[in-house]
């Protein structure tokens, strides 16, 4: 098992955001986590890094207990996050953002990795010297993904990578996810509002509600499930 959460709880002040999460990701899997706004999906990803610290429960990565490690040490276990809201460095250039992603990587891989990012997202190569804050939303999203990939992670965490993007970009991003997994064997944990795309791209999925996992199964099973269809697919919007 690559990543395992057991009985994880997390709080923001008196808000009880995660209420006993059990979730696991195996090497080579694409796992998706779906759920309405405010269900606690982003909190779950951030809590892997101790932001916020879990108040109860245990998180292991490659068999190591990472629950109490400092944030930057957890990142050094080859886990990369494309966070909610992208969080690129707006007053740095595109190139500088990419270099920030490569801080932990072997400098000998830098040129190869940069070329790989240009091949994946050609627009980034055209904008290398542009301040990242002036990129369009879609371009910023690509930059955030590229920055995360520059670290050559074993586990890639994506928080709503398609949010607010034009359909063309969304297609591109899901295609990238598939390639990373199939061609490079990367393990991926994906949060999506776009449940339809996500469940089709994933081997397995979890449904989250009110800080708890309410359902789990293969992507196909969840796609077929009447409950999931009603709540997240056919225009339905479950209450958080």
């Amino acid at each position, binding site marked *: 098992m690559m990543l395992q959460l057991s009985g994880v709880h997390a709080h923001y002040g008196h808000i009880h955001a995660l209420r006993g999460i059990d979730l696991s990701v195996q090497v080579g899997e694409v796992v998706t986590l779906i759920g309405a706004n405010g269900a606690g999906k982003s909190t779950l990803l951030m809590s892997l890094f101790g*932001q916020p610290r879990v108040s109860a429960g245990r998180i292991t990565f490659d068999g190591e207990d990472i629950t109490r490690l400092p*944030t*930057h040490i957890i990142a050094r276990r080859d886990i990369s996050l494309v*966070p909610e809201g992208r969080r690129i*460095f707006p*007053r*740095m250039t595109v190139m500088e953002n990419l270099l*920030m992603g490569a*801080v932990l990587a072997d400098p000998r891989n830098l040129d190869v990795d940069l070329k790989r990012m240009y091949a994946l997202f050609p627009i980034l190569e055209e904008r290398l010297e542009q301040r990242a*804050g002036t990129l369009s939303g879609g371009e910023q999203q690509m930059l955030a993904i590229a920055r995360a990939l520059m670290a050559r992670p074993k586990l890639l965490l994506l928080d709503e990578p398609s949010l607010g993007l034009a359909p063309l970009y969304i297609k591109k991003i899901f295609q990238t996810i598939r390639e990373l997994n199939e061609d490079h064997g990367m393990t991926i944990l994906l949060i999506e509002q776009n449940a339809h795309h996500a469940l089709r791209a994933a081997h397995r999925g979890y449904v989250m509600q009110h800080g708890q996992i309410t359902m789990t199964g293969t992507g196909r099973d969840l796609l077929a499930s009447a409950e999931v269809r009603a709540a997240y697919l056919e225009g339905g919007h479950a209450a958080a």
Partner: protein
Amino acid sequence: MALALQQLINGLTLGAVYGLIAIGYTMVYGIIGMINFAHGDIYMVSAFIAVTGFTLLAAFGVSSVPFALVVVLIVAVLFTSVYGWAVERLAYRPLRGSTRLAPLISAIGMSIFLQNMVQLTQGARVKPIPPMLTGGIDIYETAEFTVRIAYSQMLIVLVTVGLMIAFSWLITRTSFGRQQRACEQDRTMTALLGINVDRTISLTFMLGAALAAVAGVMVTVYYGVVDFYIGFVAGIKAFTAAVLGGVGSLPGAMLGGLIIGLIEAFWSSYLSAEYKDVATFSILILVLMFRPSGLLGRPEVEKV
């Protein structure tokens, strides 16, 4: 005309020194969003280290000025870096996430501690150093006035400009500089990329302190004396320079320093030497009232 030229030279020298100290204020503000109120003392402490160091070296018969200068610079930089580190560790880090006022108060506490320590060990008297780097070049002479650049002024300007170039390069072109700027923009995200944010913040405090230490040593060589009050006031002037340039902006700190240095030089020769400090503090108040983001600072609101 000749007098103006001389004051220009004096003002640039002073300004270089204020700029060097102001960098420490601005870098720390950039990374933690708070003023380091214990920064001003560093300059004074390093001036006293310089006096003690030069006197001791002279007593031991060291007559080489460059050697003495290098030794004193190294000692001052080491000592003040440790102090800068301690300020962050003791006054700021434990209070992160508390109210904004709390670390300011603890920093002022550390600053008072340091001031008293210096007064206890050094006494409140004005201390002279053995004469060093005397002489200069006369560049322009009229019947009643000779414009002169002292060797010590040249040294100050050369060292300062060199340090500013090196420091700008560090911040804009190196991996450490990128990490430093990343911490300024989004600390959590920086940690998520595997960077030790606490270490970056500590280093920022230490670098700022080291630059101020160089300024303190330079000024001691320039004036040949140091007293407690001069050191204290210079810290506040450098703070004014940082605010005038735009706190958080590196070029702003340098520009602010130059402007304050020039104003002070011209004010004291054409208006009143007694009230030169008033000029600086009036500027501080005016800037805070009418343009709190300073000349080169970026406005608080930013489109992301």
